[in-house]
């Protein structure tokens, strides 16, 4: 290592390094201030009782200051008073993990991911296979299936909130004209398995066994409708990457269609499937928008209260318990990390690369 500044080559190396850092500077600055700093700050805040504000107890203050009492109709608390945050250690985490509402929130999120991910992937794989076969109007079908993905979640949630309305919605109208009974789409608190098996006398009470509530299932249907196009396009790209010669060789060897699918198509699609599994799994845990718009109060019996919605509710509404919400956010981070590791471990070895 030439350490002397009088050396021309050393000076040039420093200049080149400085130039590279200058190129990285804009992006790094933004990432530093709005990514690294927040990650640390979030960790620190989760150990405090930082609150956006406490409601000011108007009646007490008025009584103390003036000696009179405010009339009964006056609100108990008005405005917000920001307190200095206090370090409380693991209290937030302990509160979160022992809170019954949070446990229900975890079950809801798990139910949502457990059913939306496989259903979406299966349906989009099926559609991709159909579109990939030699039919006419491929472009038309592809556009129609992809179009829902181009729309925004907010607008779609509003439309489906109307679509799934118990009285005025089209969903129940379709069912009625087919002779099937109406469903309480967004207001039904019972789990789908509980609903189906309950009529045979087999009742499930545990939230995981009873399945997602029918209102959560309506939201799952909405997300399947929307995400189908995206996964279909990726599957199509993966399918088109498979060499025709594999199929021709299999034909010669006398393999049937089903055999060809399970021995050729599916294994060669596994990198794509694996990638989509992770992406959709992570996204399913972060779902928020449909819950906010279709069931703004957390759903019937709190069954559509997912973890990000809970975070928003506790942290940015009501008393703005930002410290607690930070702890919840870190728990979410941990869950996603564990989930990704598990998926890597379980499915990683089954992925066939060319």
């Amino acid at each position, binding site marked *: 290592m030439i350490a002397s500044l009088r050396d021309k080559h050393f000076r040039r190396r420093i200049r080149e390094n400085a130039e590279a850092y200058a190129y990285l500077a804009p992006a790094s600055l933004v990432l530093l201030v709005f990514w690294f700093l927040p990650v640390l700050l979030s960790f620190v805040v989760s150990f405090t009782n930082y609150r956006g504000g406490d409601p000011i107890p108007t009646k007490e203050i008025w009584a103390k200051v003036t000696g009179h009492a405010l009339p009964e109709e006056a609100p108990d608390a008005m405005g917000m008073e920001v307190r200095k945050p206090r370090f409380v250690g693991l209290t937030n985490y302990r509160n979160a993990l022992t809170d019954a509402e949070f446990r229900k929130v975890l079950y809801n999120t798990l139910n949502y991911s457990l059913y939306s991910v496989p259903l979406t992937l299966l349906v989009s794989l099926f559609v991709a296979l159909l579109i990939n076969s030699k039919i006419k109007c491929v472009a038309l079908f592809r556009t129609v299936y992809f179009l829902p993905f181009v729309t925004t979640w907010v607008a779609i949630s509003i439309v489906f909130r109307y679509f799934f309305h118990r009285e005025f919605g089209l969903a129940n109208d379709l069912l009625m004209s087919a002779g099937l009974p109406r469903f309480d789409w967004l207001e039904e608190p019972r789990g789908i398995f509980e609903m189906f098996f309950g009529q045979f006398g087999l009742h499930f009470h545990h939230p995981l066994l009873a399945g997602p509530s029918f209102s959560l299932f309506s939201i799952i249907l909405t997300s399947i409708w929307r995400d189908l196009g995206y996964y279909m396009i990726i599957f199509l790209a993966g399918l088109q990457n498979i060499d025709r010669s594999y199929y021709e060789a299999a034909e010669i060897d006398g393999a049937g269609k089903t055999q060809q699918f399970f021995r050729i198509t599916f294994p060669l699609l596994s990198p794509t499937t694996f990638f989509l599994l992770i992406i959709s799994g992570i996204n399913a845990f*972060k779902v928020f928008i449909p819950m906010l718009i279709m069931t*703004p109060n957390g759903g019937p019996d709190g069954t559509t209260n997912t973890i990000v919605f809970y975070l928003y509710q506790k942290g940015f509404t009501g008393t703005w318990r930002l410290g607690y919400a930070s702890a919840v956010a870190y728990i979410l981070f941990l869950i996603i990390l564990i989930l990704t590791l598990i998926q890597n471990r379980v499915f990683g070895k089954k992925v066939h690369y060319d």
Partner: protein
Amino acid sequence: MNAASVPTTTLALAGALPWPLTAVLAVIAASIVWGVWKSRRIGYWYPLGRVFIYIALSIGAFFMALPFYWMVASSLKSFEESVAYPPTWIPMERETYAQRDGQRVRVRTLGQPRDGIAEVGFYGKPPSGDNVFKIPADSLEQVSRIRLLWENYPQTWRRPNVVSWSPRENVAPSRPDSLWSAMAYPFSAIEYHSDNVFRRVAEIWRGQPPYLLSFTRYFWVSLITGLVVTIGTFFTAALAAYAFSNMNFVGKGLFFYIVLATMMVPGQVLLIPNYIILEKLGWIDSYNALIVPWLASVFTIFLMRQFFMTIPRDLWDAAQIDGSGRFGYLWRVVVPLSKPVIITAAIFNFLSNWNSLLWPLIVTTKPEMRTLMVGLQAFNTEAGSEFHLLMAASTIAILPVVVLFFFLQRFFIQGIARSGLKS
């Protein structure tokens, strides 16, 4: 859905179906059987017959398109029709006519007919006294006409048109007189604090003056933030990606893995601390809060880096011989060559910003700084049961991106396929 309806479902599915559904299911079953039989003979490598494929895809396409149709059709209905039971598929106007004194007059039914006698009142007059009479229900004439209520759209657009005002500024709210003033050019603030046009622009950027609200304002905020974020991420990502792909520097590997690690952490962890930081900076309710945190996009950096690495070194050597520096080489050679990746990244960044709800919801409190998505969500909360207006608002929100999609279809689909394969 009550306890009695679930057995009914099962029974219905077991065979006691109404004839249209049975017919459709029979056709599908028959085509499956025929398709499977046919594909045993043909040397195609997919297990189902072509007819079944067309039928299945068409049924799927119908369900894909149905919510769109429902949205647009409902947006053209009147309020009564949007909450009618059963819901109508085509926006219609129902008029009831009755014979009175040898004349055909328009009436309105009041309540359900009893014993075949209906109580009706003259249309447009209060239902009391002489204006109400009873006639046999059969003699009423119902006329249905297709009517598209286009007025819903201007009504929706103007709906958030109360001047939002800050209590500290003491500006009283007032309603704008005309549609034109309601669709006001976004710079028409009610009250500026400075005369200088540059200071006024700074005020607008800081989100200070109260505005005439309408969907124009929501669109404007979303557009400005989307454009600035897209352009900003292009510049920061091009520079950073160039450094990662073409330069060698101390700590390159470490830097790279740190940047890679940013993708592991979910955005929700950053929400709360970013809010705290923005509050301390005083950026809440300004364009800064909506734009600056998004000026670096790790996805864009990676995308560009992948592409820059495929550009042959000979080009750089040739440029160096011609006396070009690294900066000039980047902007004059590398970037023009990377147009497809740049467009893909631009679409991705613009759409991420356009579609985001949680972040703008948190960093804005004033109605005039709402983005389109936040405006929609607020509209949903305010006008919760006026479904015809809600559907009009949704159509308004979806339309721009759908139109954009039809022009840039190739880039959309290419971009997604590309990002999927590069896993």
